[in-house]
């Protein structure tokens, strides 16, 4: 006869859940702050700030809901993650953005993403993948450029065609 109901297995506070709840509360605060910057010149009906405030209230309530879930340990069980592989792909994305940003062109940018992703999934033949990626992205570039007449950003490689 316990007065506290004992739930299944893990009833420990989940720190990830606390972070989620905090992030939602922060998002709600940003919405309210942003809405307060708007001018309402509409005496009848709803101004542009009404909806953000409604959504912010919803987010605030959900932050509390997620907080309760986290306190009860209701978050799903998680297996360990291969963080190195995730960071490798994120690094590939960052490289892609940087190459597009400095005008390196579509082929080089997507090749970088292809090689890092393939490496993250366990391929070791980086040079072979580099070749495959160059061929694949060149074909995509020409397909978009010539067949669909959609222009993709051009860099040194693209200007060769």
């Amino acid at each position, binding site marked *: 006869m316990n007065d506290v109901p004992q739930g299944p297995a893990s009833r420990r506070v989940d720190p990830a859940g606390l972070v989620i709840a905090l992030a939602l509360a922060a998002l709600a605060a940003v919405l309210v702050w942003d809405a307060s910057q708007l001018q309402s010149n509409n005496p009848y*009906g709803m101004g542009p700030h009404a909806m953000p405030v409604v959504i912010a209230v*919803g*987010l605030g309530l*959900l932050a509390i809901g997620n907080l309760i*879930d986290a306190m009860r340990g209701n978050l799903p069980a998680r297996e360990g993650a*291969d963080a190195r592989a995730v960071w490798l792909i994120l690094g590939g*994305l960052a490289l892609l953005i940087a190459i597009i940003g400095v005008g390196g062109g579509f082929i080089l940018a997507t090749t970088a993403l292809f090689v890092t*992703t393939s490496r993250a999934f*366990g391929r070791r033949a980086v040079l072979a993948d580099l070749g*495959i990626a160059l061929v694949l992205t060149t074909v995509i570039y020409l397909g978009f450029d010539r067949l669909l007449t959609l222009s993709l950003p051009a860099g040194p490689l693209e200007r060769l065609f």
Partner: protein
Amino acid sequence: MMDTFAALAHGMAVAVQPMNLLYALIGVLLGTAVGVLPGIGPALTVALLLPVTYKLDPGGSLIMFAGIYYGGMYGGSTTAILINTPGESASMATALEGNKMAKAGRGGPALATAAIGSFVAGTIATIGLAFLAPWLVDFAVRFGPEDYFALMCVAFITVSATFGDSPIRGLTSLFIGLTLGLIGIDKLTGQARLAFGIPELLDGVEVTTLAVGLFAIGEALYVVSRRHHSEEKLEPVRGSLWMTREDWKRSWKPWLRGTMFGFPIGALPAGGAEIPTFLSYSTEKRLAKHPEEFGKGAIEGVAGPEAANNASAAGTLVPLLTLGLPTSATAAMMLAGFQQYGLNPGPLLFAERPDLVWGLIASLFIANVMLLVLNLPLVGLWVKLLAIPQPWLYAGILVFATTGTIAAKPSVVELSMLAGFGVMGFLMRRFDFPIAPVVVGLILGPIAESQLRRAMSISLGDPMALLQSPMSATLLAIALIALVAPFVMQGLGRFKANED
């Protein structure tokens, strides 16, 4: 009644023009080829292939969409049967029985019953769509803005809270989507919201950027993070591709029953294909002569849920085309496809562009026939696509995913948003937040807000106007019940658990 036949005949005349047939064929092939890749569901298939249709005229591009939509669905079931990784929860039942059949060397009949069942269900459901749509349009023209707003509230709640594992997590996803929908210039007053002075944000968040980030990049990050936990195994298709007389006998009733579950549930703003597929699965299990075969590869367990899945996909087109209301992530992507041409599905579109709407509906029939004729002979090709090694597969998916965004908006901000949504998709998968409500929230949120503001300016700011229309009052009550019900049920469940 006669009007529908006339409109449909007119649509057929549009759809069978050689160019449009070609678009449908390309759509079906591309849709299947992309949909068959593991981890790519129909919503992502449509999102990835949107850029391909940028330069087409709206008619041709919507017809290609019809093909992509059905092709993506079919490709997904092939993956579920052959490698037991359902791209979406609606294919889970198919994966359950179909993969067992493939392991037992009956992959051919499993694929065949899925294909023919999809055809039967798709055709019946498209007929349902053709006859239901004009009726619903007549009804919907009388809707005021407050009724539309209330209807959208129902869709918001049912998509996020009512049927998921956790209403809190579903609603959290929805509200993140709604928040993203606020970003950009407010159309009524021209003021920027949540743009933080970044010019690229003034146009708002692109639905395709969000969907591709959440689904493609999020999925790739998730799969790579648990690379060492799960082993995917491709089952070769052995033995005959064709169904025996026994297989036919066991399949045709589940096809029809699955359609009966799928179409009405898909057509309700409740949306989602999970419920009809699971209803169909449990019904077939109960009615089967050999219920002990279930879990070991019963053909009824593939035939019924596959039919239900396809019928509900056609069903979700009913609220999408007649009310402009997307009730699944895939339907949200279709709506984005309309919006890229400045078209808003709804009663007006039926009146103003009947050629477009009916051409699309007619194309659904044609896409269905094409899938049936093409896919069984081409199954060998699809299996080869499935055999691409995982590193190249995901590297290729990410290259295609980013190519779409680079083609649409080659800016650092847009690409950073894509990567950010990818991280969000990864975290949401890891912590079991549903993805579809984010996409629906982003695309439907701004529409709901403008309807609400229109209603408020008509009523001079009196919020009671929402309750004075009997229609919107009823719908809001339904939304409230749909919101409270899962919490009550959860409470009951906990109460019961404590009793034990």
